[in-house]
């Protein structure tokens, strides 16, 4: 195969390009074929419903407003702000989630007392929670971006709690007895056996959380009234959809890339911290 001898990075880069190419071909092919056959189901092939891929990319290089900077620049700045909120939310959610996980594994009482609320918290939709956070945050004079981060954290902590609990309980009972035979303290057992054993579980959760924190930040920006982030732009472009659909598509592409970048960073950290030894299994 031609791929042999290439570095891993080159290969994954090529495969990403390949998938983009396949997607473009499918998208444009659908438009061509459905137009020729005059089909309109399930999606109309016209330029309003499905703008040409080059128009979407082109929209990124046209000014967002008359005489303004190109859309790409505006959206990259927006993505930067949103990612920063997402990152802070991710860290808050991760720390709180890990802390709760440790607490629940240490204390069955705490788990019984709090776990139902942790679960219940996730059945309440974010759009219901967000305004409350905004109002309370406003009262306490919390900066707007931090309010958004707290909303993002709300989506982030749950997978971390669940997987931390699962992971901390994953070591074999004999590993725990072994530590007991050394007269180790619970803290030593936690850090030397349970946490290392839980790392693969926690990183799985963190990947879910990284994506969720971006969504949380985007959605959180709306009730918080945060300007300049992706949330506001996505809302605005969706209102202008009939006039300029390619702008919304372009913003969605940027939001998607932001999410991929974040999850990518977490995956990189996972490879770095979860020992090479365990990749074999």
């Amino acid at each position, binding site marked *: 195969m031609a791929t042999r001898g290439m570095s891993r990075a080159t290969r994954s880069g090529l495969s990403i390009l390949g998938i983009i190419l396949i997607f473009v071909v499918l998208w444009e092919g659908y438009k061509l074929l459905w137009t020729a056959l005059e089909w309109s189901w399930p999606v109309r092939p016209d330029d309003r419903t499905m703008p040409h891929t080059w128009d979407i990319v082109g929209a990124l290089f046209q000014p967002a407003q008359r005489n303004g900077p190109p859309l790409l620049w505006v959206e990259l700045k927006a993505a930067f702000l949103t990612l920063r909120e997402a990152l802070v939310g991710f860290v808050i959610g991760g720390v709180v989630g890990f802390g709760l996980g440790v607490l629940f594994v240490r204390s069955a009482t705490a788990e019984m007392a709090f776990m139902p609320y942790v679960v219940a918290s996730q059945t309440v939709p974010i759009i219901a929670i967000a305004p409350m956070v905004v109002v309370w945050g406003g009262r306490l004079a919390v900066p707007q971006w931090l309010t958004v981060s707290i909303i993002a954290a709300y989506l982030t902590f749950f997978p971390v709690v669940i997987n931390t609990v699962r992971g901390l309980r994953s070591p074999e009972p004999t590993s725990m007895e072994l530590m007991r035979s*050394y007269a180790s303290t619970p803290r030593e057992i936690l850090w030397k056996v349970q946490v290392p054993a839980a790392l693969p579980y926690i990183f799985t959760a963190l990947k879910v959380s990284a994506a969720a924190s971006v969504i949380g930040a985007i959605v959180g920006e709306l009730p918080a009234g945060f300007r300049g982030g992706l949330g506001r732009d996505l809302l605005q472009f969706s209102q202008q959809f009939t006039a300029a659909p390619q702008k919304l598509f372009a913003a969605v592409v940027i939001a998607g890339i932001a999410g991929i970048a974040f999850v990518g960073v977490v995956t990189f950290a996972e490879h770095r911290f979860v020992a090479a030894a365990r990749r074999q299994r």
Partner: protein
Amino acid sequence: MTPAVEAKGIGKVFGRDAEAVEALRDIDLVLSPGDFVSLIGPSGCGKSTLLRLIGDLATPSAGELTVNGKTPGQARLDRDYGMVFQSATLLDWRTVKKNVELPLEVMGFDSGSRAAKAQEMLALVQLQRFAGHYPWQLSGGMQQRVAIARALAFNPSLLLMDEPFGALDEMTRELMQQEVLRIWEETDTTVVFVTHSIPEAVFLSTRVLVMSPRPGWITDEITIDLATRRNEDTREAPRYFELITEVREALRRGERSDA
């Protein structure tokens, strides 16, 4: 001399009321320092439970138990014993060397003396070349040797082994037995060894305690008067076979009294 282990009328009951299961009844035993004692019996005879009581991984329901003249709990806190389980129980994110260092980390040795001690222990079990390997890169026998090195790293006076070679093939098993005897001679550790293999118990031990189930108790005690230095020739000595027969008959008697 203080006995390494002394038990008087030990009993152990799991569960309570109608669901209570009596695992051990009226266990008396005295182990002198330097002994190599095997507990042998069919599964369910409580031999592992007895070992766990000695290691303070469970608490007796009745009787008196001392380890080096102390309560088992105190002996555990004093790190008087090392434990080897049937599965090697190595931490798979640690290298062989780091696994051997685990108890030393807990016990507060500095990194220099940890490394030196791990080196010495790996030499003892002849695995120096594998210090940087991860557990999954080793065979089952090698993993168990790491577990033994780890159990001995902090020089405990007592080594508790719970069917350590139960999962190994026969050839590896015999090599490991040889190895354990060599280590026992080199380190003057007292060993309590749980097994259900008659030849293994006879080959290794100075004494074999035969147990029978429901409730578990010690039915016979057989002193193994083979030469102190045992090797592959021992396995073909007539006395070895006589003792195997003796242990087997003791086990049968235990079963019959049960029926």
